[in-house]
């Protein structure tokens, strides 16, 4: 796609460093996809601004010239949320890298959107604090991306998601105006909860240029337990029993046989010999609670048929337990040339049933499915394995992957627990929500982006024309018509 000269000229006025304005087709290709690499679109031009004023000016130009634009963090997204638009501008925030402030007394950090998630905790550690949301991609993903996706992590069972840990954002609106949502370092800013509405809007309501996050005190004690089971259903029942026992673990993760096999091959994590399923349960908090709680969890696992239960005795043992879990996605590559990472949610109680159904789906299609998931909150990450070089396997894998999402919807769950809708799941939105639900969400979008220029084609299957107001009559007011009222 040729870049209109007028656009280039105007962008050059804003971005003076040539390196930060990319229109060379070969270089543009670096930005054609995010972590979901089978969606690829080369953008018309890429800009890497370094100040809010630049972002605002760029967006203003796009708005005036009616050119679509997409924000990009570090491109680790798994729903093609940062997928560029072919005739649009890609605005990459990766040069916004400053941690402005670690405010110990207020337990807040003020950071740029391009700051890496883990770097916030690193910077806060001297103050005895950390940033709780910990997506598995935390060494590479950006805070701006986290805000856009409302990212979670293994510990969100207890601590919640990004939306619970952000108290303020600075945003460049789709017309270039710079605004602040939230209370900065205070909570409960008066008026509509724009912060709550913005977080998780997948880059469709504006571009985040600064983020204020909550920092937490490091817990006094952390205990991690590993339990092996003969079946996923036993493990699933143990999970329900743990939750019912009034303990709120920081994390409950589950892996099935295929996922364990892959992890063992890759990182030799030493999970219980022959286990069909493993559970990782982590408790954190005050000493006594954690010590008593972990005993209860151990007892529950044993009474639900655990073949082996281990509680990490050292930081090294704990790290090894997590290494198996955290390497799982990458490790799948050792047992299958290609795979799809799915992300769906079910009510925790139907876990055993749904896992059974997934197994049946896979068997019927001749497709293997490995299961790795956040069991505590019912967030499944089935890994659908296939070999693209085998005729028809990709199609069958896609069908299985789609059918898994249908299962989530059928059981009252969600089409995505943390990876977002992006471009990838737009077609499922209409299955989870009806046209009125989607129309209502788009009212919000229209309030921000009437022209549908800000990350178009994401989240919603069809854009709403912002001028139209369904069910409303135009022209003379009916009461005026009836002579019952006067306009004044």
């Amino acid at each position: 796609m040729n870049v209109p000269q007028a656009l280039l000229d105007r962008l050059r006025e804003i971005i003076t460093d040539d390196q930060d304005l990319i229109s060379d087709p070969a270089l543009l290709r670096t930005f054609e996809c995010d972590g979901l690499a089978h969606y690829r679109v080369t953008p018309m031009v890429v800009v890497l601004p370094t100040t809010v004023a630049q972002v605002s000016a760029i967006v203003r130009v796009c708005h005036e010239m009616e050119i679509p634009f997409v924000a990009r963090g570090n491109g680790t997204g798994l729903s093609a949320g940062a997928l560029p638009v072919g005739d649009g501008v890609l605005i990459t925030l990766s040069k916004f890298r400053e941690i402005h402030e670690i405010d110990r007394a207020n337990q807040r950090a003020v950071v740029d959107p391009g700051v890496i998630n883990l770097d916030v905790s690193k910077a806060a550690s001297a103050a005895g604090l950390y940033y709780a949301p910990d997506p598995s991609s935390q060494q590479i993903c950006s805070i701006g991306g986290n805000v856009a996706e409302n990212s979670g992590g293994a510990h969100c069972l207890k601590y919640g998601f990004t939306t619970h840990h952000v108290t303020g954002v600075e945003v460049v609106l789709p017309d270039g105006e710079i605004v602040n949502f939230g209370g900065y370092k205070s909570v409960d800013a008066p008026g509509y909860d724009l912060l709550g509405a913005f977080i998780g809007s997948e880059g469709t309501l504006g571009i985040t240029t600064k983020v204020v996050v909550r920092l937490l005190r490091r817990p006094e004690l952390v205990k991690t337990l590993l339990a092996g089971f003969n079946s996923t259903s036993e493990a699933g029942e143990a999970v329900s029993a743990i939750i019912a026992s009034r303990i709120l673990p920081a994390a409950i993760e589950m892996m099935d046989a295929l996922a364990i096999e892959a992890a063992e091959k890759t990182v030799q994590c030493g999970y219980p010999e022959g286990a069909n399923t493993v559970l990782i349960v982590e408790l954190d908090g005050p000493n006594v609670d954690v010590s008593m709680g972990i005993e209860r969890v151990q007892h529950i696992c044993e009474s639900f048929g655990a073949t082996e239960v281990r509680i990490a005795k050292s930081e090294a043992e704990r790290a090894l337990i997590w290494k198996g879990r955290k390497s799982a996605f990458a490790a799948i590559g050792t047992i299958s040339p290609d795979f799809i990472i799915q992300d769906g949610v079910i009510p925790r109680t139907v876990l055993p049933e749904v896992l059974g159904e997934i197994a049946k789906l896979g068997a019927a299609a001749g497709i293997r499915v490995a299961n790795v998931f956040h069991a505590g909150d019912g967030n499944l990450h089935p890994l659908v394995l296939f070999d693209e070089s085998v005729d028809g396997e990709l199609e069958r894998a896609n069908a299985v992957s789609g059918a898994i999402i249908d299962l989530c919807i059928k059981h009252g769950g969600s089409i995505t627990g943390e990876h977002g809708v992006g471009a990838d799941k737009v077609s499922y939105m209409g299955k989870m929500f009806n046209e009125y639900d989607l129309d209502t969400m788009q009212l919000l979008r229209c309030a921000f982006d009437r022209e549908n220029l800000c990350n178009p084609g994401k989240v919603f299957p069809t854009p709403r024309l912002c001028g139209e107001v369904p069910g409303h009559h135009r022209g003379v007011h009916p009461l005026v018509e009836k002579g019952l009222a006067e306009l004044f």
Partner: protein
Amino acid sequence: MADQSESSNTARRVAGEEDAVDGVRPLHVASPTNSHELEETFREATRLRTHFVLSGNRTKIDWGLAPRALELGVDLSRMPVIVEHEASDLVVRVSTNVSLDDLQLQLRQKHQRLALDTVVPNTTIGGMIATGLAGPLRYGFGSVRDLIIGATVVRPDGVRAATGGRVVKNVAGYDLAKLYTGSYGTLGAVTEAFFRLHALPETSQFLIFDISLHDIRSFSQLVLFSQVAPSAFEIRDACDGSGIQLGILLEGFEASVRERTSSLAGSLGQEPRVLSHPPEWWGSLPEDTTFKVTLEVASSQEFMAQMHEISGSSGQRLLVTGSIGSGVLFVGASQADRLPAEEIENLTHQVRSAATRAGGFCVVLRAPMGVRRSVDVWGTIPALSVMKRIKAQFDPFDLLAPGRFVGGI
């Protein structure tokens, strides 16, 4: 007296004095008994350009500002009552006409709770969502917006829509439940909500420390950085030199609560009064005129010092309660309604500038009508233009509770 409107079967009656919203009396009150009737009532109101206001148990009906125009009251209390407690999933689906206390009673049977306090007696779930008001437990569990995971709303044009879902972890689509929370009923009616629940703790214990003004900062920092994981961290100060009380709620296993109590007493250097039930002031709003103040937690001492000054100088008695740990306080001015208008204005200005200096905001949460008419209830609101655009999208004819909310919304 009930008359039937021409195109709907919803019961309607002529409004009485008791139906007034902040002194403004509607002509009629509609009492829909199901969602269909509610939608029809809204559709009809939009078609006829009728201004309308929603009500539940009317415990907070005089919060915010008086509506600019009002022809129809819509009483939601006769809508169907729904409580579906999915105990093993720790979620509940509840219709918004249920009172929070009734909901808690049902949840308690399965040893669970919605970790939000009844701040105003008899409040309904709908009133709680509309005002977004949370009490002491917000320190440990977050506020209404943090625990609501899904909602069904009816827009001013009568369109019913769902947002979020019944699972806690869910990022599909925009989080409109948060947008509706704290919107003072200006975007539509929330008819049902899903909430995340928590298990009831085995034990709870309230620790009360008596401190003085200049200890606020060091004490609160010690608590914020302690390892005792409080569920609530409250303050009560009558600003008259009679002493300041800090209240800390510890919950969990009995042995742990005991251990944490002594650990906290040790680090604060004071033996607290230990109560198994909350003190009488716990989680309640001051009487009469009440400001809601938000602030950065590290600025609470400076803020409280200013409240003492104002309290001493103006002849006003201020009473401050609230979650000092979260930075959300309630400042009560019991005699405000007896003050001349300019003094109320002055008082509001003083409290508001103290809040601003502390990095937060101040709104008049509730006050006699006379007081609210003479002051700027909401103050300056950032990003107001965006809020107005949202209102214009959801309610293009400005029919629902016009003028009740910030910036004339």
